[in-house]
């Protein structure tokens, strides 16, 4: 038996086995590495995808708009209408059916795909001579005026119904989804869900109305609201007539009664020419008459029985140039004018203070849209948004968005023999149609968010009815024809205001507290104090917001003078206590140093007592006895407000004077003075300085007020219960713990060797702190404040609850505001998914994200550099 080699082999194998890991261990190790890597990277990617997702939602806001020619559908117009003048026309929302009415009273419906005529309706007898015709595709109403001195009102609209399967002829039953076929005067489409949707045209005409005195209406416009129909017309003998029909339905009997009120006014015609256009505003309160040369007269018809002339102006100033198109924008308030120079302009009424017209309003050109090269042929307003399409003489079609003052897209009409005569925007805002004699062009509008441009979001925009361009955020309203106002500046402003006031309050307190904690507090006390302040951080902000809004705001409102007095009383009391403390003999002072904190705690109620004592005095002295009325600007002078502002400045000035001139003198004079007597002198100096500060501030305030400056109305104004002061106070409170903790860490990170060296060299604690510790920890303190700033920018619940949430741009510390974050919280739940509003709110979120991320990164980089430096020391 050769045991030797065998044994050595076993030994060798064992050694090998020992050296080698088991396979399962290796596999598990690999697997763990793989999983952790995937999981780790995945998690980090998931967190960062927040930003990516926000960007993805925001991007479509800024995608440019397009007009795409619809090539799939060869469109044409009904042949029969070719020889007469087309007066009005329309198309249904699915673009399955169009209609045109010609001046011989025939209305023909046809299918745009084929030009196949579906039905013919006679609106009026062919013999009747049509003098004016108006149709509004938004409200579907039609107004006709005839030479036999009658007018006729009516309604032309499309009806949609779903036809049950058994009513459908066999040959249409297997229509493939998406296909259309003519059916019973209308067009039927099989929807993707398999239902049969039938579109038919409905024409309802009222009986003709004979005009009084045999007058013939040359121009006509109609305006309809829920209860009223207002008709305005200009007769051939130049008389403006307005009539309002108010229909009331008796809720009990269901009977409808209508009342008619009318008014007349003779109009002076320049050179006896009838105006080209008559336009009646949406509420029936204003009538515009415009002549071909651009002359416009405006009449106030708020009182239907007595219309009065309001103003006149020239829409086209250049002599020889003509007004070629005049159309209302949605809502019938803004007039769009097109002229022979190719300009397209928006006009609306504003109400300036110094208006001299009877209704206090004047018409101004608010928007000047990018002009075309040749004369404007036709303007057409979108029935559901503030878009406007213009056709120019050279066949160019431009699509504009009026609020944001931009051209969205353009296209060109093929200039054939049957050139385009009428332009239409489809009811769903998704297509433009140009109808010619024998041809129909259509373009798909691809413009999801026309109102969003950088300049509209962050610049001033002239909104309808506003006296001047302004930053306004107003995203929703009760009516459909409301102009959405997406000016984000008021929200950004509110965010900055909240941040400013909370930093003004929180940052100094937190940093001072940190300095005292790390440099002067006994380590045993410090171990208790620091966690106490950090408890604040765990207070949910909803709690702070609730306390701010429902508890502190009403209290502060009642004690405004005392609160202002407290701002003065607090530093005064502490300084006074400090000077009194100096009166202690040196030995006692050294021994008592660790109990200084007790004195400081006692000083706080003392400051409150001072404030309660001074509050009414200040109110009587500076604020004319009633601070609320004073803030309103009803009583008193601006001196008090200036005091408010100049007091800190005056403090700085006196402190500087005192340090630069008085202290050296003091030092040399008191060379041989004892400690106690010097301390007494110092106390005296302090009191004198206080008087000096007051005197200086008052003198300067009085002077400024006498010169005529009154700061009220700017950053000091009417008091609102939920205001920036309250928010600043509570949000300052919310950011204190984070600033405090980081500042304290930064100060404590300064190596003790530096402290020891400085103290050893004979510097006092204060000198060490101010000359050695703070300069070294400066960047750490700075980064603490930056991080606090980041917190304040994004804080939501406190501002949501305590800031009043009105998006105004107002520096007034006693007024509310709305921040980006609160705005998101208020509006996002109601925003329709993927609408402009929704994406705007995402933009706000993205802005917040980027802002805080940048601020935090800067702070973090500074902090890391500081830490490195502190370690090097």
């Amino acid at each position: 038996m050769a045991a030797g080699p065998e044994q050595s082999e076993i030994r060798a194998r064992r050694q090998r086995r020992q050296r080698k890991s088991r396979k399962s261990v290796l596999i598990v190790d690999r697997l763990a590495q793989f999983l952790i890597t995937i999981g780790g990277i995945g998690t980090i990617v998931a967190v960062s995808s927040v930003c990516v997702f926000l960007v993805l939602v925001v991007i479509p806001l800024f995608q440019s708009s397009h007009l795409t020619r619809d090539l799939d559908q060869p469109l044409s117009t009904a042949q029969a209408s070719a020889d007469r003048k087309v007066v009005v026309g329309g198309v249904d929302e699915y673009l399955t059916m169009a209609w045109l009415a010609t001046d011989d009273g025939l209305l023909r419906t046809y299918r745009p795909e084929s030009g196949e005529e579906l039905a013919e309706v006679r609106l009026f007898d062919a013999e009747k001579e049509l003098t004016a015709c108006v149709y509004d595709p938004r409200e579907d109403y039609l107004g006709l005026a005839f030479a036999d001195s009658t007018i006729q009102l009516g309604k032309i609209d499309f009806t949609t119904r779903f036809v049950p399967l058994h009513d459908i002829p066999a040959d249409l039953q297997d229509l493939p989804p998406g296909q259309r076929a003519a059916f019973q005067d209308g067009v039927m489409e099989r929807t993707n869900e398999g239902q049969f949707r039938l579109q038919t045209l409905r024409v309802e005409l009222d009986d003709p109305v004979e005009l009084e005195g045999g007058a013939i209406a040359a121009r006509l416009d109609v305006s309809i609201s829920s209860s009223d129909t207002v008709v305005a017309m200009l007769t051939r003998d130049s008389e403006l007539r307005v009539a309002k029909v108010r229909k009331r339905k008796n809720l009990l009997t269901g009977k409808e009664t209508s009342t008619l009120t009318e008014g007349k006014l003779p109009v002076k015609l320049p050179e006896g020419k009838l105006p080209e256009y008559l336009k009646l505003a949406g509420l029936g309160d204003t009538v515009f008459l415009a002549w071909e040369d651009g002359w416009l007269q405006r009449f106030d018809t708020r009182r239907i029985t007595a219309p009065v002339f309001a103003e006149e102006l020239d829409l086209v100033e250049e002599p020889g140039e003509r007004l070629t198109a005049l159309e209302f924008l949605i809502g019938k308030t803004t007039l769009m004018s097109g002229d022979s120079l190719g300009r397209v302009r928006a006009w609306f009424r504003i109400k300036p203070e110094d208006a001299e017209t009877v209704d206090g309003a004047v018409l101004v050109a608010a928007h000047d849209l990018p002009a075309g090269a040749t004369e404007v042929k036709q303007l057409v307003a979108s029935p559901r948004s503030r878009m406007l399409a213009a056709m120019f003489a050279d066949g160019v079609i431009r699509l504009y968005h009026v609020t944001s003052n931009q051209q969205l897209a353009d296209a060109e009409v093929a200039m054939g023999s049957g050139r385009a005569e009428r332009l239409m925007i489809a009811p769903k805002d998704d297509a433009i149609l140009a109808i010619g004699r024998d041809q129909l062009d259509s373009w798909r509008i691809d413009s999801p968010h026309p109102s969003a441009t950088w300049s509209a979001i962050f610049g001033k925009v002239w909104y309808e009815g506003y006296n001047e361009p302004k930053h306004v955020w107003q995203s929703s309203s009760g009516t459909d024809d409301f102009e959405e106002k997406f000016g984000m500046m008021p929200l950004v402003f509110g965010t900055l205001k909240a941040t400013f006031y909370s930093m003004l309050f929180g940052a100094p307190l937190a940093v001072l507290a940190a300095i005292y904690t790390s440099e002067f507090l006994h380590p045993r006390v410090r171990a208790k104090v620091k966690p106490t302040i950090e408890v604040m951080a765990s207070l949910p902000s909803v709690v702070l917001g609730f306390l701010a809004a429902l508890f502190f705001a009403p209290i502060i409102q009642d004690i405004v003078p005392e609160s202002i007095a407290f701002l003065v009383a607090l530093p005064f009391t502490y300084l006074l206590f400090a000077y009194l403390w100096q009166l202690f003999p040196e030995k006692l002072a050294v021994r008592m140093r660790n109990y200084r904190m007790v004195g400081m705690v006692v000083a706080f109620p003392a400051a409150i007592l001072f404030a309660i004592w001074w509050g009414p005095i200040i109110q009587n002295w500076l604020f004319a006895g009633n601070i609320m009325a004073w803030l309103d600007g009803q009583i008193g002078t601006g001196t008090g407000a200036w005091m408010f502002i100049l007091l800190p400045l005056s403090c700085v000035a006196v402190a500087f004077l005192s340090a630069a001139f008085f202290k050296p003198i003091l030092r040399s004079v008191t060379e041989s003075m004892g400690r106690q007597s010097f301390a007494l002198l110092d106390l005296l100096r302090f009191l004198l300085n206080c008087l000096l500060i007051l005197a200086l501030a008052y003198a300067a305030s009085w002077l400024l007020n006498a010169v005529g400056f009154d700061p009220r109305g700017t950053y000091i104004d009417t008091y609102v219960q939920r205001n920036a002061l309250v928010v600043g106070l509570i949000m300052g409170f919310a950011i204190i713990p984070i600033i405090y903790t980081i500042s304290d860490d930064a100060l404590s990170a300064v190596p003790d060797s530096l402290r020891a060296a400085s103290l050893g060299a004979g510097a006092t604690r204060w000198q060490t702190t101010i000359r050695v510790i703070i300069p070294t920890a400066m960047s750490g303190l700075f980064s603490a404040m930056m991080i606090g700033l980041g917190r304040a920018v994004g804080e939501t619940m406190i501002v949501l609850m305590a800031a009043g949430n009105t998006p105004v741009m107002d520096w007034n510390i006693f007024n509310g505001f709305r921040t980006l974050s609160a705005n998101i919280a208020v509006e996002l739940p109601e925003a329709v998914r993927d609408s402009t509003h929704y994406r705007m709110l995402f933009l706000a979120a993205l802005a917040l994200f980027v802002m805080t991320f940048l601020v935090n990164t800067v702070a973090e980089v500074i902090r890391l550099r500081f830490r490195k430096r502190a370690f090097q020391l």
Partner: protein
Amino acid sequence: MSTEVPELVETAESVGDAPRRRRRTRNAAHSILAHNEPMVWLTGAGLVICLVMVLSLLLLVVSKGSATFWPSALVQVTTVNGKTHLGEVTRESTFMLSFQSLGGMEDASREQATKILHPLYRQRVVDLVEADRLQSYLEGLLENTKAAIRISVAQNPTVRDATASERHALLEAVDSAMETESERLTTATARAVEATLADESGDELQALREQYRQTQADWRALSDVAAMQAEFTPELLESIWGAQLLSLLSYEIQYPMDRRLIRTGNFELTGEHFNWVSDFEVVDDGETKPDWAVLFERLSWGRFYGIPQSLTADGEVVATGPEEVWTSFQKYHPEARDRWHQRRRLEIVDIGRINHALEAARLALKDVELAHGRDSSQWQAANDKFTQDKEVLDAEFDQIRKEIQRIDAENEKFQVLVKTSDGQETSLQLAEIVRAFPANQLSTVERIGVYFSRWREFLLDDPREANSEGGVFPAIWGTVVMTMLMSIAVVPFGVLAALYLREYAKAGLMVSTVRIAVNNLAGVPSIVFGVFGLGFFCYIVGANIDQLLFSAKLPTATFGTGGLMWASLTLALLTLPVVIVATEEALAAVPRSMREGSLACGASKWQTIRRIVLPRAMPGIMTGMILAMARGAGEVAPLMLVGAVKLAPELPLDGSFPFIHLERSFMHLGFHIFDLGFQSQNSEAAQPMVFTTTLLLIALIALMNVMAIMLRSRLRKKFDAGH
């Protein structure tokens, strides 16, 4: 070495300049200035303010929150207006009684207030006359008065709507009238002052005011500006002028007055929950504490205060007189409540079960319809089954309804007749009464009993009266479940990410950039995460899940709207950086030597991490989890977007399959605070509840922290013992 050091050395040198130092040590002035005590005190002030704020805030929440449920005495006050209020005093405040505040008062109160104010006013005029300053004072008021008249005319609605020219003409007329009639105006002033001086009681002055007011009101009511201009007579001007002067003279006269807010309840009779009663309004001896005034807390309509008259049990009057009624009330009330609980169980549990079954059957049918179409034979079969099921369920439902009706009829027989303080009598059903007690009779022990019974209800019951009464159990439950789910989601991923960053990724610029970025995500506002949660989780992920799995329920969203899962995931994302940072720090704190030792023994990297690093880092990871939970539990802003609601009908975690309902919306304490404080109709009644809820939320967060800290120290002990 940094460049700053020479500077520091320089500073030290300048301090340590030898000859000067000697002088300085002798000089007391210099020593005092060098210590700069005032500046030290200012920094100390910062600390004190911070501490005072924290402590007073906590104290405020604790005191207000814990005082809410204490049963206070019931007071009955009779006012000069002839009204009697019975209820609890909830708030006291001091306000300035002035002539301006008389407007909203009833006649008797106004008379009473005038009695207080008139002497002050009269004294003021007398002082002016005696100091011979009346003339100069009135002259000083002249311009103000003119401006005020002009403004009051211009702001008249009729005038405001008039055309500019008409308005202008009218104001011209007013101006010129004031110029030409100045003599008449002086007489008017003189008369007003005379009247004031002559009249001790203030009646005459009041009559004068009234006359002025009437003349003006008549004029203001004119509908036409032309008529207004024609009617602008000197007499009218005199009225306006006089009224203006009187009000200006009385403008600054005010008198501090205490008032109390009394919770009077009885909403269905009075239409009010609360009434302010000023001290001067209370008639002499008009304040009592009726012995047998009883406070009823009811299921609906809020509280009821009154004196019990009789009690009807089983349809028969069994007790009359307050004391007797109270005894028998205590006897019958528990039974009635039992019946009510039984009814509620039927309503919630049994009917809920039937509704669920019905809904499930309907969905099954819809599924078949979507899969095979309505014309198919499968659908016919499914429809038949559905009809059968429905019949069974309907029958069951009918039975339950009958049972409920039976209990209702039973409850109807137990009533207590209560007389309110103003003599009205109302019957209250015993079953509808949650709690009742004669507040003025209670001993301290009984009061404590009521106090704790209210706390019990608050913690364990459902809310009622639009959340302003009852309990917050669903909100507590929602908060806890949501936070737990969030921790389950956040901890593994956070630890994975930290492990990767610390142990597997190659250290370099890339990793430190990622680290800074992750760190900074902790500072990104929570609302941004809410926006992400709504846009991504609810609208994209949730909508797709609905399309795939719950298409039968569409268009009603299941996961496509805010819910428990999305809220937890959103908060998990929000708190992920906190966990990552804390875990990383914990991993970094594991000594290198231990890792190396393990590796040297032949352990693989994973073995080292699992056996050595992770256990040592466990306390740190726990800290991260605590921080994440504390932050998550207190966040409200993102929850408003992704699923917290005012009132959730069903709990997110309950006894019905599958026990945890991730798609349900839930109640949350933080959101509850927001909702109660800002969207409650009866905010005065809700406010004490908000404080209690606040206290509870803070306590819950503190409890979570404490629990986690204990867990951490136990783990630390365990692992420290192992080494």
